């Protein structure tokens, strides 16, 4: 059984899709924000791999064909953005102001917390790019001398967390404007947050897509400045 699973190129893909389908079913049944399909799917797959003692690299043999679609899918985020271009033009100042505030808040809060926990410089720069999309964040972390594997892990946790808590955060802080919700999701938790924004609505999705790119690029510059502070 184990040898068969290790050799299969379809096992990883099938189990990922099936776990997500199960996640959707569970959410429809219970309607709780914590029961996020992505979170459920991840936990299910982890459980199956641990149970059957399948190594990650064997699982990824099939699963990587799903990851392969991530770049084309991100490219496609330009489509909803294009459809909301008028709205973007009309609110350009607010959009620019919001994303800038988010990026600064991210870098400053990591800095303050790193001081508080007296983290080393290496650990600090590892966490600096935590809110931006994996591919940019990994590059920034490496460039500044961080540990990129931890950066990737933290970026993914940030994404899933943002995806799960977004609606509660919006309620607590009384964020009601669709543009504000979209930008908040994209700036705080990149593409995984954008998946949530797409569920909330077209405007939210488009603004979140925009925030991935803009916040990512701002962080490239901002993180290199903040890295010198500690």
């Amino acid at each position, binding site marked *: 059984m184990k040898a068969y699973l290790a050799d299969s190129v379809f096992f990883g893909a099938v189990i990922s899709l099936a776990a997500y389908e199960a996640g959707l079913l569970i959410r429809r049944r219970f309607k709780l924000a914590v029961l996020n399909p992505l979170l459920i799917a991840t936990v299910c797959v982890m459980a199956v*791999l641990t149970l059957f003692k399948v190594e990650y690299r064997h699982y990824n043999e099939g699963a990587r064909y799903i990851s392969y679609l991530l*770049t*084309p*899918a991100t490219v496609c985020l330009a489509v909803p*953005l294009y459809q909301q271009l008028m709205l973007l033009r009309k609110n350009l100042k607010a959009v620019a102001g919001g994303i800038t505030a988010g990026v600064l808040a991210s870098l400053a809060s990591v800095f303050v917390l790193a001081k508080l926990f007296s983290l080393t410089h290496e650990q600090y720069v590892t966490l600096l790019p935590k809110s931006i999309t994996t591919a940019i964040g990994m*590059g920034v972390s490496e460039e500044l001398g961080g540990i990129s594997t931890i950066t990737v892990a933290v970026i993914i946790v940030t994404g899933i967390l943002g995806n799960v808590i977004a609606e509660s955060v919006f309620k607590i802080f009384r964020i009601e404007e669709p543009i504000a919700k979209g930008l908040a999701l994209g700036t705080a938790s990149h593409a995984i947050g954008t*998946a949530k924004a797409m569920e909330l609505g077209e405007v939210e999705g488009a603004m979140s897509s925009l925030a991935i790119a803009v916040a990512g690029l701002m962080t490239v510059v901002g993180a290199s400045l903040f890295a010198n502070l500690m």
Partner: protein
Amino acid sequence: MKYLKQFCIILLISFLGELLHILIPLPIPASVYGLVLMLTALCTGILKLTQVRETADFLIEIMPVMFIPAAVGLLESWSALQPIWLPVIVVTVLTTIIVMAATGRVTQYMIHRSHRQKMKGADTP
């Protein structure tokens, strides 16, 4: 054949993004170059919305699934995370909430302010 053509265009733009990523020595991924290229192509009319729309909608809809392999990969990073897991968790949770609230509140405040200014402008001709 519509879907094949649309997928081909999307992959072509991804490929061009990859090319830029290799040629330009900046930590910007192929996907972000591709996103900008796609937006430019749509804005300039080189590409029409109908030439990519359905496939783009489909790919965006199934996007959450594409994060599962990376998220499951957290199993592998556990050994690296273990020594500093507590500060990492605290930083992750707090900053995610802070960034989300800051971005949302500032954007909302600026939208409302510009609305008020427009209202005032309408009152005093």
